[in-house]
């Protein structure tokens, strides 16, 4: 049954992404220069990636709370697996965002509130993994990571909100998503890309969880063998 789900998700993901690419590049017209022209097409992948990375971190947040409540390692595995995939999507997101800025405005980095929020998010989840690597004992590692995961996730809305405060003082936000006013074709493209990326996230998460659970079993067996040898 599981195999069917994995293959199904894979298929959905490939098909949705392929169709969305077709839609974006062939069906949709290029928007006018003021709305950043050709590079606007990045939007259809950029926004789903943003939402999915936020969702991934919310999963980490909830899994962290569940771990502290139940002390079951499967929640810890879920927490860091989702954080890892969220981090990957976040990095991809940053690359899209920077590329878009470069193509649209000619500069790699602007202190755009969104970019700054995502950057802080990446640092938070980078710190999460650095913390994990600094604790050898499994239970302690999971406990500390869960606490920091909660703190980091709470910080996301604060970042989101406070970086928007910058715009009042520095130059105004260059554009906003709302400024586009999506028509039917654009909405279809967005939904296709969104579906494809969501399927991709779930697929990656399931595969990662499977690998991690196997690794746990391997470690347990290893320890059993080693202790028998002593």
């Amino acid at each position, binding site marked *: 049954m599981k195999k069917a789900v994995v293959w199904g998700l894979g298929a959905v993901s490939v098909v949705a992404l392929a169709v969305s690419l077709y839609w974006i590049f062939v069906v949709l017209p290029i928007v006018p220069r003021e709305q950043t022209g050709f590079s606007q097409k990045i939007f259809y992948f950029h926004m789903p990636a943003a939402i999915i990375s936020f969702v991934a971190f919310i999963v980490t947040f909830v899994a962290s709370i569940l771990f502290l409540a139940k002390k079951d390692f499967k929640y810890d595995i879920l927490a860091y697996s989702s954080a890892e995939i969220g981090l990957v999507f976040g990095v991809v997101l940053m690359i899209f965002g920077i590329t878009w800025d470069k193509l649209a405005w000619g500069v790699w980095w602007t202190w755009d509130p969104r970019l700054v929020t995502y950057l802080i998010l990446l640092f938070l989840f980078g710190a999460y993994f650095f913390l994990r690597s600094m604790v*050898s*004992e*499994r*239970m302690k590692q999971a406990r500390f990571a869960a606490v920091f995961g909660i703190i980091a996730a709470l910080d996301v809305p604060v970042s989101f909100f406070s970086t928007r405060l910058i715009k009042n003082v520095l130059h105004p936000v260059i554009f906003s998503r709302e400024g586009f006013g999506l028509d039917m074709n654009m909405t279809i493209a967005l939904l296709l890309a969104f579906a494809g990326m969501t399927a991709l996230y779930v697929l990656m998460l399931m595969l990662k969880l499977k690998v991690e659970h196997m690794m746990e079993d391997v*470690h*347990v067996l*290893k*320890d059993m063998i080693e*202790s028998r040898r002593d």
Partner: protein
Amino acid sequence: MNQDKLALDVQSVSKMFGRRQILTDISFTLRTGEFLLIVGPNGAGKTTLLKILATLLSPGSGDAFVSGFSVKKNPTKVRERIGFISHNHLLYRDLTTYENLKFYGEMYGVKDLDARIDELLNMVELNHRRYDTVRNFSRGMFQRLAIARALLHKPEIMFLDEPHTGLDPHAVDILDGMMRDMSSTTTFVMVTHHIESTLSLGTQALILDEGKIQYCSDTGIDLERFRSIYGKVCGRGIEHDCD
């Protein structure tokens, strides 16, 4: 048996550190007023077991009832009733003798604290150093003050983790004297390597090896069985330290 009559009721306690099994299915009981000796080679899990009973570590599975209270569900109630002496003296070096005892006394909510401090300092013969910072104390003096610290709140159960290590004879005398004086009113649990010298104090014994109970006395220490299992586990007679 009614849990209220038992000083300790350990029920299937297991503990893992990471993925290593340190203790496996430890179960035993101890009546009030007894003196339990826990022995075994290094790495047997003795200190881990003691720390679980003292609520410094949580049991991985199982539970332990100390003076009738669960270490898992009621650790605070357990802490009110126990004293702990280890080779760490647990004292603040930049505080004076008096200040150290006053701090712990307040943490335990000891009534008539000043009088109690006087009483204890006299008992451990440290009254003359009352207002000195403990930084320059000798090991024996640290241990004597640690005894005073552990007794501030008149605990029902005393846990001792190899307390004789590195002590001068004077401190050993005070420690042993304290244990003898209190043996009727207090339950003792002591992890030790020097089995021969402490055998006279003990009324019950537990031998641990690789996290499992090898010998657990019931109505008293069966010396013959104890010697033979000790010899098997530690590879030597009881005149020698275990590992």
